[in-house]
């Protein structure tokens, strides 16, 4: 069981992530996706909004989305606290500074705006959409990488 405490290799992690698709479908009838949770929280927190994007979203019958992301937070806590040896660091130390926080805020804004405009993220488009052979999800996934490569290689922000 020692290997559990080490970082998991791709051939364990990838298939397990792929299993999210049938697990959610067969055990709850839901399609895999995370980014709609932002719209959900927005609609829930702004019940009097007149914006169609929030007004027309029926959050009461989609509460599973909150349960699902709450599960992700919980699972990540367990994974970091009980299934890892050393304290984990997923973000560079210099993000814990004013400049770093501004970077994260800007980056977060781009993530939130972008995924909602694109109608899905790496989960909903790249894993779920491509599993469902949606060509729009292929375009989405290529666009995600164009954006990431652009900022990493060209703009070097």
């Amino acid at each position, binding site marked *: 069981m020692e290997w*559990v405490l080490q*970082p998991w290799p*791709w051939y364990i*992690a*990838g*298939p*397990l*992530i*792929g*299993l999210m698709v049938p697990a959610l*479908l*067969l*055990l*709850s*009838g839901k*399609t895999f996706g995370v980014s709609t*949770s*932002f719209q959900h*929280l927005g609609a829930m927190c702004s019940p009097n909004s007149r914006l*169609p994007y929030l007004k027309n979203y029926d959050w009461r019958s989609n509460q*599973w989305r909150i*349960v*699902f992301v709450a*599960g*992700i937070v919980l*699972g*990540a*806590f*367990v*994974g970091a606290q009980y*299934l*890892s040896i050393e304290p*984990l660091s*997923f*973000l560079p130390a210099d*993000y*814990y500074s004013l400049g770093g926080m501004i970077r*994260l805020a*800007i980056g*977060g*804004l781009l*993530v*939130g*705006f*972008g995924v*909602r*405009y*694109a*109608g899905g993220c790496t989960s909903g488009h*790249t894993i779920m959409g*491509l599993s469902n052979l949606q060509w*729009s999800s292929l375009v989405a996934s290529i*666009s995600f990488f*164009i*954006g*990431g*490569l652009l*900022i*990493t*290689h060209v703009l070097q922000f």
Partner: protein
Amino acid sequence: MKQLFVLLIGSFFGVVLVKSEVVSWYRIQKMFLFEEAHMYLIIASAIAVGAGSLYLIRRFHLKTVFHEDVAVKAKPFHKGIIIGGIIFGIGWAITGACPGPIYAQIGSGEYIALITFAGAMVGMYLYAFLQPKLPH
């Protein structure tokens, strides 16, 4: 019962995201710099398993454990998929987190990711405001 299953599946996803280091800014950097194959192999094998599962579900007309039909909505193409997709990709490289990993980073104890989350909520509201004017 359904919500309990969703909570367990979500928790399992959270564990895998942390243990595979998919939520690590360093892994995302190495992916965009083509320095390691880890992320590419995870994404590819996840799609292979997801696609195979969907094929089997359809081939054998499997139903949910609650005896409902399995329905997967189509994702129709619109211009936002490209524009929004590129914008998201930029944010992904900066924060080292796509939406699932934002939640996972917070749960794993990288509390600074709460700022990423707050930014994402602002971005969502911005989209909600601009949606009628944006090309789709």
